[in-house]
């Protein structure tokens, strides 16, 4: 609640700070092709790892896929550049998902 107060508490701003167009955010954007290449290469690496049994499969593969997912979320979905509110909203459920998965697993 308090996070929003700098915007909200101030009377004059509180009304409608709105008309700031959101596209200001997109003026800064990453090199999409670079992100794409990383994703493609990482996918290939993942498949490659499955042929090398010496590497601990589950943790490495999971870490790689989470990293890939974060690349998409941060750059393709612009969470890195967009309002912090969106990041806050999007990451809250994971706080709950993790206990849920753990409890399901323990049974």
């Amino acid at each position, binding site marked *: 609640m308090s996070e929003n107060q700098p915007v909200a*508490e101030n009377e004059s701003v*509180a009304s409608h700070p709105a008309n700031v167009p959101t596209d200001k955010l997109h003026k800064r954007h990453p090199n999409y092709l670079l992100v794409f290449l990383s994703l493609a290469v990482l996918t290939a690496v993942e498949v490659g790892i499955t042929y090398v049994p010496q590497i601990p499969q589950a943790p490495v593969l999971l870490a790689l896929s989470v990293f890939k997912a974060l690349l998409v979320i941060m750059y393709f979905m612009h969470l890195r550049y967009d309002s912090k509110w969106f990041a806050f909203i999007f990451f*809250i459920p994971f706080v*709950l998902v993790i206990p*849920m998965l753990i409890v*399901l697993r*323990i049974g």
Partner: protein
Amino acid sequence: MVDTARRGFVRHGARTWRDYFTFNTDHKVIGIQYMVMAFVFFIIGGILAMLIRAELAAPGMQFVGGKAYNQLFTIHGTLMIFFWIIPAFIGLANYVVPLQLGQEDMAFPRLNALSFWLVVPGAILMLTAFAVGGAESGWTAYPPLSLTTHTGQTLWAISLQFIGFSSIFGGLNFLVTIFNMRARGMSLSRVPLMAWAMVATSIIIVMGTPVLSGALFLLIFSRILGTNFFSSTAGGDPLMWQNLFWFYSHPAVYIMVLPGFGMISEVLPAFSRKPIFGYKLIAVSSLAIGIFGFLVWAHHMFTSGMDPLLRIPFMITSMIIAVPTGVKIFSWLATIWGGKLRFTTSLMFALAFISMFVIGGLSGVFLASVPIDIHVQDTYFVVAHLHYVLFGGSVVALYSGIYYWFPKITGRMLNERLGQVHFWLNLIGFNLTFLPQHTLGLDGMPRRVADYDPAFTGLNLVSSIGAMLLAFSTLPFLINVVVSLRRGALAGPNPWRAFGLEWTTSSPPPIHNFPTPPVVDGDPYGYGERPVPVAS
């Protein structure tokens, strides 16, 4: 109501009663649609409850056998939760919250209409499930039992999917509306507590309901396609359903009571002529309940086969959640303390809410304690507890809200004399019904049984008599609504001399709510500080 805008099959605003049967995008129309439909299901669910109590008035099976009885309480529970309390609160909030925010509608009016109209196929499916038979494994539908019952169980699950989607879209709409659409000058610390309560409610809806939806899909696939998620014979995991189900359904308890908290926080200041005590703590405790409510679900499974060690963290979280609830209760008591109480029916329901909800909250602490829960789990003690929370809490708060906002919604006052009759019959009937059930449970009567040990006859009879009284108490309310709609005294814009933007427009509000966009210079609890705002 003057103009009715129309575009394709979409209507906005209501001119005649027929407009209430259309895909209408006016939040006021949708609110009324929700409330009226929910009340119809309240009556149906109530009739089922009467059949249950009739069967239980004496030991042995008189009217219905085991199967029919199982179906009765399954449909009773499902209707009361998913078709009465949740939609009734959503309906009243739908009407009130945009007005409180000084807006002309919700953020997504068409999505709002879709939310309501998704309930309708859900309702039809649920009634079909009842007619077909087979939805008889309780509203909790634990597999493997729910895999062995007949077609009605599948329809039951599909029906709840519709309700779930309706709920999700509604919650999303409330969140965007309250954050993005506030009157000029309404900072977050000036948002009415009713709206804050809807924020907490919507957070729960948005994060919890999809999990129920997922669990229901698994159940539906298991029944139709033969997947083995919960089937013990094929190696599946029956406990997984309980985890997923309660992950939603425990927070759902807060979906059913947080809007009530919000309504009480509006009603108490208005009728005690004092500002709400501890605004910030009340708002924060709603959010705390909204988040913490997700970390307590396994207390419904303390006696199940779950890992014994897991019970400890869940016991602790379940108990902690009593703290924010307690904070609210104390803040409300401090609000009326030293005030100038005006005993309208609305205030009396609000006070009764505090009184009854405390009982439900305290019995909740017993259930959170693992050793005590081992004894009372799945007994009538739980039945008593949940009715104190969901009837003594939710429904009583809802009545308080209805008596408070009825003049705003209809432009006419409800009759106070009938209101008082309704209140006392309701309160006495309710306590007569559910207070004895605590003792029944502690003494050894399990829940969900059509027959019981003759030793429990006396208290069961008392409970059944109370239930009949409780059912009867709805009659003066219905008469009051019907008569007052036509003959009630004219309310004027602000009959209670209350703060809050909803009282600054006419009753009922015009189609776009406010002739000019309102501006706010304080929170809606300025009693004793500022003059009551005058309608423009």
